[in-house]
């Protein structure tokens, strides 16, 4: 009988990472968790956790070790519901479904939409300049992404869109850890699925839309019709609140850092960098998870095979080991290696679309407005996975 030296257990953290209080400002907690070690164990949730940039990017790059096939959500109900989702597959199956997304969201096609986005953004900003005071979320961040994404997915231009938007943010709580928020999300997730199964039929969807493309793929037998509906849901749910929250967060950062706002007004070529910097600091998706397929050593700890490992995009993006002065909003930083869009095979397929929307909106604002300021206290969305503002009173002139 061998007496192998036991691997030290990962340093433990007992506090509730998903409590309302922590979610409002998780960054001091993330720092503590990073300082504990390259991997930690969250006792309250029976989850290993990766909070440093190197380990998060490493895990995302190594899908063979850190598998998505057992789901990436933080509870078994969501992982069962999302089984047909592209998020919860590994290659080679992942590649087949991913190809449908990539073909539909191919940056070269999305870039053809660019001119129209800019016009829409200009019209929106003109409207808001007349008003002077507005809500950065309701009146700005929510307007363009919702119309664009809904059109691209192909949902009919009717009142269903408001319903779908209302349900979308719930999907992030649905994917969160077990608890009140997750339990409350169940009927809403169910309602959204049922609605789509009934109403998002090929005959209702906009022509040449993503929805039509995936139904055609189902007709050809490349995917099942459940996979088709799940893909539409995935596209909508993943593409709405993330972009809305990204735009809202960047707006807030600019309004509260006037020197950075001045910098982009003087040099609008900084806008792509500013958008990336905004999502680095306030990553719209803060967490997902993977399951290890083998024993894996991180630092001095061996994570056993079959362990669910949480990874924090939000923490990795503020890791002082990777980004100097990580809590400083610097529009010149251009953090192209941010993990905010995930990494490798699961890289956000909507990255180009989201970026184009963000650039169009910020560009229109920078051309028209000379100042942007907070006009009251913003209120935060409290959600297990997504981070953003619920209301954001602003004044522009």
């Amino acid at each position, binding site marked *: 009988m061998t007496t192998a030296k036991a691997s030290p257990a990962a340093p433990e953290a007992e506090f509730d990472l998903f409590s309302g209080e922590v979610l409002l400002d998780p960054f001091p907690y993330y720092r503590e968790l990073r300082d504990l070690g390259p991997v930690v164990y969250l006792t309250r949730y029976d989850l290993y956790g990766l909070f440093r940039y190197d380990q998060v990017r490493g895990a995302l790059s190594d899908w063979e070790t850190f598998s998505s096939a057992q789901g990436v959500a933080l509870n078994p109900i969501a992982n069962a519901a999302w089984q047909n989702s592209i998020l919860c597959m590994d290659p080679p199956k992942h590649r087949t479904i991913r190809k449908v997304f990539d073909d539909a969201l*191919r940056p070269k096609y999305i*870039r053809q939409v660019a001119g129209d986005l800019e016009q829409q953004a200009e019209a929106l900003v003109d409207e808001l300049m007349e008003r002077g005071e507005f809500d950065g979320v309701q009146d700005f961040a929510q307007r363009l992404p919702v119309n664009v994404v809904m059109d691209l997915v192909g949902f009919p231009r009717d009142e269903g869109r408001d319903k779908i938007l209302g349900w979308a943010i719930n999907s992030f709580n649905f994917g969160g850890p077990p608890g009140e928020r997750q339990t409350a999300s169940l009927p809403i997730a169910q309602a959204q699925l049922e609605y789509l199964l009934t109403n998002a039929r090929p005959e209702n969807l906009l022509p040449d839309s993503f929805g039509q493309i995936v139904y055609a793929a189902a007709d050809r037998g490349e995917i099942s019709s459940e996979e088709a509906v799940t893909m539409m849901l995935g596209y909508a749910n993943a593409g709405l609140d993330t972009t809305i929250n990204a735009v809202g967060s960047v707006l807030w950062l600019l309004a509260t850092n006037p020197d950075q706002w001045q910098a982009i007004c003087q040099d609008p070529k900084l806008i792509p960098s500013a958008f*990336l910097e905004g999502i680095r600091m306030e990553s719209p998706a803060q967490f997902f998870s993977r399951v290890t397929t083998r024993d894996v050593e991180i630092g001095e700890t061996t994570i056993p095979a079959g362990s669910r490992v949480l990874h924090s995009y939000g923490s990795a993006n503020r890791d002082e080991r990777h980004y100097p002065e990580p809590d400083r909003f610097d529009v010149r930083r*251009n953090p*192209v*290696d941010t993990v905010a869009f995930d990494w490798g095979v699961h*890289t956000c397929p909507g*990255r*180009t679309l989201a970026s184009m929307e963000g650039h169009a909106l910020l560009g229109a604002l920078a051309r028209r407005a000379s100042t942007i300021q907070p006009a009251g206290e913003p209120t935060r969305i409290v959600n297990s996975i997504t981070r953003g503002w619920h209301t954001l009173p602003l004044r522009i002139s």
Partner: protein
Amino acid sequence: MHVEIDHVLCVGYGVCVQSAPEVFAINDDGESAVTRPDVDGELESVTRLAEVSCPMQAVRIS
């Protein structure tokens, strides 16, 4: 250093362009392309950044 893009892997996100606009650009087809295949001196570090940051690992440096 010599720079190429593996067009089988490339999806056209344009992270390379954002990292090193002197070396990469979006072409007329809306895909990423190398505009400066031979890079030296000051451009080497942003080219390496592009290589490392491409989510699809499609930038090839030799």
